[in-house]
């Protein structure tokens, strides 16, 4: 346990709401969760940070890369955090995160009470479920906590000892980069062998992180799909309770429960759970036995499901008007937004589970990978790796570390291993399809001692991948011989414009040298 037990002047309304919520949960489920942690953030900006971070990485302790960090910080500055959401981390002894804020004047503590009921319903389910979903999240949390501790202890000392402030960012990027790539088994090319563990604290740390990351990735991949069950059950419990309230209270509180009620995952999950029993305690008993979403949705065929979910969608239309105050653009802009998220879950997520019988996260991940490797281009003196990465964790500077952390030759981080080859990365942003190239400028020159792994002459280019014929004009080069000896045979799963972009970038890389 952290901290000491202290006498606090606790807001009596808060305490009241908390006790009421427990009572309501007891009445509804005939049980209450006992093992959970409720974090109540007095500083709502800290809550925003935790929310953004958890959404981006999947756990509240994971380390974020410098690139993503900047983006998230910008979101916070622009006040774009979706902080109407309650954060619930469904590990063993689940963590409930709530910001401290007022929800309207009269019914503020009532709203808080209902939000707590929502969370307690989830917590009760997580406590008793037969699924190993909470165990997985627990493992994730533990691993991330270990890494974060290792990070804080080692890196602090290391940065101080060597007087090298770049080390913070380096390890941050390294850890986050490994986390992403190890999910796809792409992390092997930049980890040194165990024999150099004794070389320095630097390598020791890298090896430790790698092992922990490996475990973490395994856990993530094995994780069952459980979102429908969890959200659906909580939605049902909360909805049931709201039904018993007075009409005018309902009217006042429902707008504030926008983040809890009417979310597509919850609404769809609820529809399936309703088939499991007559009253809530019965359903609870049934739902506890479910191991994953597949077991929940397999009761209907695809056709039946479509029919049922169409009815739910119509119902959602009527209700969701409660949650938006703008009447001008409701039908033109707001409803389509909600509907598109709904359709995505009802047809893509539920559809995939029903048609292909997906049970675990790995199957979903394999279907639309965020990172994939397209092989390598082989040049005379080096290789160029080709990837597509649809994630903000790894950007140019992060790639540089992967490219380079074994290239730097100063005493503090010398190594016998070659680094990653130059890389070409494809990334899509809506209508944009970018191919970027990262290479080292003077390969032939004797390396001076760089001050850090970032300290290298770089060639960086980014181009729009396009079908246009005249898109890639290049500065002509006289001796074409070197370029003609490039081997493009090992590439796979690429489109024609992508191939052209690769050729152009390789040519450019040669020209600049």
């Amino acid at each position, binding site marked *: 346990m952290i901290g000491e037990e202290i006498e606090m002047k606790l807001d009596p309304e808060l305490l009241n709401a908390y006790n009421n919520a427990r009572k309501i949960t007891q009445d509804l489920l005939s049980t209450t969760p006992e093992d959970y942690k409720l974090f109540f953030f007095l500083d709502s900006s800290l809550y925003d940070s935790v929310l953004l971070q958890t959404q981006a990485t999947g756990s509240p302790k994971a380390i974020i890369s410098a690139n993503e960090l900047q983006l998230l910080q910008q979101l916070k500055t622009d006040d774009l955090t979706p902080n109407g959401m309650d954060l619930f981390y469904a590990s063993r002894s689940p963590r409930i995160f709530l910001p401290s804020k007022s929800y309207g004047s009269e019914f503020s503590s009532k709203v808080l009470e209902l939000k707590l009921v929502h969370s307690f319903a989830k917590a009760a389910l997580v406590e008793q479920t037969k699924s190993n979903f909470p165990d997985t999240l627990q493992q994730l949390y533990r691993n991330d906590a270990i890494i974060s501790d290792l990070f804080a202890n080692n890196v602090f000392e290391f940065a101080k000892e060597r007087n090298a402030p770049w080390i913070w960012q380096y390890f941050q990027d390294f850890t986050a980069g490994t986390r992403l790539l190890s999910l796809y088994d792409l992390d092997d090319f930049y980890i040194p062998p165990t024999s150099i563990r004794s070389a320095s604290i630097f390598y020791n740390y890298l090896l430790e992180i790698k092992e922990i990351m490996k475990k973490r990735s395994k856990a993530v991949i094995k994780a069952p799909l459980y979102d429908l069950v969890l959200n659906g059950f909580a939605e049902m419990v909360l909805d049931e309770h709201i039904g018993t309230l007075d009409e005018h209270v309902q009217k006042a509180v429902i707008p504030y429960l926008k983040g809890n009620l009417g979310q597509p995952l919850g609404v769809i999950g609820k529809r399936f759970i309703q088939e499991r029993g007559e009253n809530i305690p019965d359903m609870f008993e049934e739902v506890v036995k479910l191991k994953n979403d597949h077991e929940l949705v397999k009761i209907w065929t695809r056709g039946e499901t479509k029919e049922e979910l169409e009815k739910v969608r119509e119902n959602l239309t009527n209700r969701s008007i409660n949650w938006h105050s703008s009447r001008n653009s409701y039908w033109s802009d707001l409803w389509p937004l909600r509907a598109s998220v709904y359709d995505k879950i009802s047809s893509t997520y539920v559809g995939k589970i029903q048609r292909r019988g997906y049970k675990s996260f790995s199957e979903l991940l394999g279907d639309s990978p965020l990172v994939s490797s397209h092989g390598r281009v082989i040049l005379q003196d080096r290789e160029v790796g080709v990837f597509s990465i649809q994630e903000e964790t790894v950007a140019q500077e992060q790639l540089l570390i992967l490219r380079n952390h074994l290239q730097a030759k100063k005493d503090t981080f010398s190594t016998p291993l070659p680094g990653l080859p130059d890389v070409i990365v494809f990334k899509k942003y809506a209508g944009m399809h*970018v191919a970027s190239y990262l290479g080292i400028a003077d390969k032939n020159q004797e390396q001076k001692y760089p001050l850090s792994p970032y300290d290298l002459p770089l060639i960086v280019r980014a181009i729009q991948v396009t079908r246009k014929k005249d898109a890639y004009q290049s500065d002509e080069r006289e001796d074409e011989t070197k370029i003609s000896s490039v081997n493009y045979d090992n590439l796979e799963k690429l489109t024609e414009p992508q191939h052209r972009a690769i050729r152009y970038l390789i040519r450019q890389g040669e020209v600049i040298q």
Partner: protein
Amino acid sequence: MPHRIFELTQAHYPDPLVDYSSTEFVLEFQDAAQLLQKWRNPHLGRSSREGTILGLASQARASSDAIKNKILTTMLSAELEEEYIDKLNVYKFMLDRTLPEALELVNLDKLLTPEDIEEFIRKHLGLMEDEYGRKLLTATMLLDDLHEITDIEIKDKFGRTRRVSRNDVLDVIGNILGNILLRQVSLWTVDDVISRPRGRFHLKKTYRAAIMRENSIPPSKISHEDIRVIDKDRLGIIYFIVDMSQSMNKQVFKDGLTRLDGALLTALGLFYYFKLFNRRKRREFDSFKMHIVPVTKNPYVISDTKKFENFLFDAEGKGKTRLVHATNVAIKHATENYKDNNYDVQIVYLTDGRPNVPFDGSIPGLKSNFLKEYFKNNMDTKTPKAAQECMIQLNQIFNYLHRGRERNWNISYFLMAGESFRATGLFKDTKEMLGSVTAPIIIDPTEIDNLGKRILKEAILSDR
């Protein structure tokens, strides 16, 4: 049911979005000078511009995802909801149409400067507003943000990159270079000092008065009678005469910086210094008015600030050095446009000291034979005849201005060259030409630290 309440502090639960890597990132003069070079040669900065577009894209994507999420989960007022919808549309438009096209154009070197990119996006958002048939507040706001566009990549000493905006860089140049150069340029906003202990102190003059009275350095005390206060502020007009001849293209400084780069850096340094000064003064009119006179075939005066800045970024060296012509233009401009003698005039030369086209018409001032004699006696000088003729003319003008009683004319003569230039005959000749009016200052912008010390020393020596 042992439910217990703990109080956790920031120490127990730190902000997960903490930026571990944020160490001090100081932009130094060297960096600023190099960046300037990049701007002036847009082909050098292509990957940086591509990075700008990528940065905009990833921010737009993250923002639009977050907005969607926010609209669906967070209670919002009607105005806010509509604002977010607008924002969402703008980002969507940017991601689908504007940025891909912009990136293509940057790839093809058709958008060469951050201004080009901004202009392009502005045009596109205009199109979008036409499509919507109304003004989109978000689009306007986004454009305002673009002014702060961080278009330039710099590296710290560990090689980590950061993006900075042009203004950051120019502030550095103005602050460092301008501050140092100002000691040579004898423009102060002080007209006179009076011995009356009321008003704002003029520390330098006060200190000097004390030294003069006691005849010792440092003075043991500052007495009542030493105190000098500033009487009133005066106005200054500055003419930068920038040599843009062929010879200025020669690379004489470190890192391939040409003489012209050096001259423009110096001009920029002073320009931003005075601009900052004007801003700081917060008067309804500017204390300093700045003009630039490029030494071209037909020298002309640029007074508009925007054009001035653009000129400094776009200038390229070609043709001969018509220094006398440019001087004439500046003097004419000053006497015709600023009839009020309350204006002090400062003419700042930024040149390599090789004028080569004598002026045909009449020039102000009395002919003096002094410099002619000097060249006659120095038969072995390597300065060409045309240059000698120009120098004689310049000397005549300078003497005329220096003696003029109706207003204060000041001359600064900056030579773009390395320290070794001091030993050449041309430097001696130039020194002779400037005579008692002023001393030539050799400027090597890449040696900024030494420059500061030297100018300080020379300024103190010459300012007795």
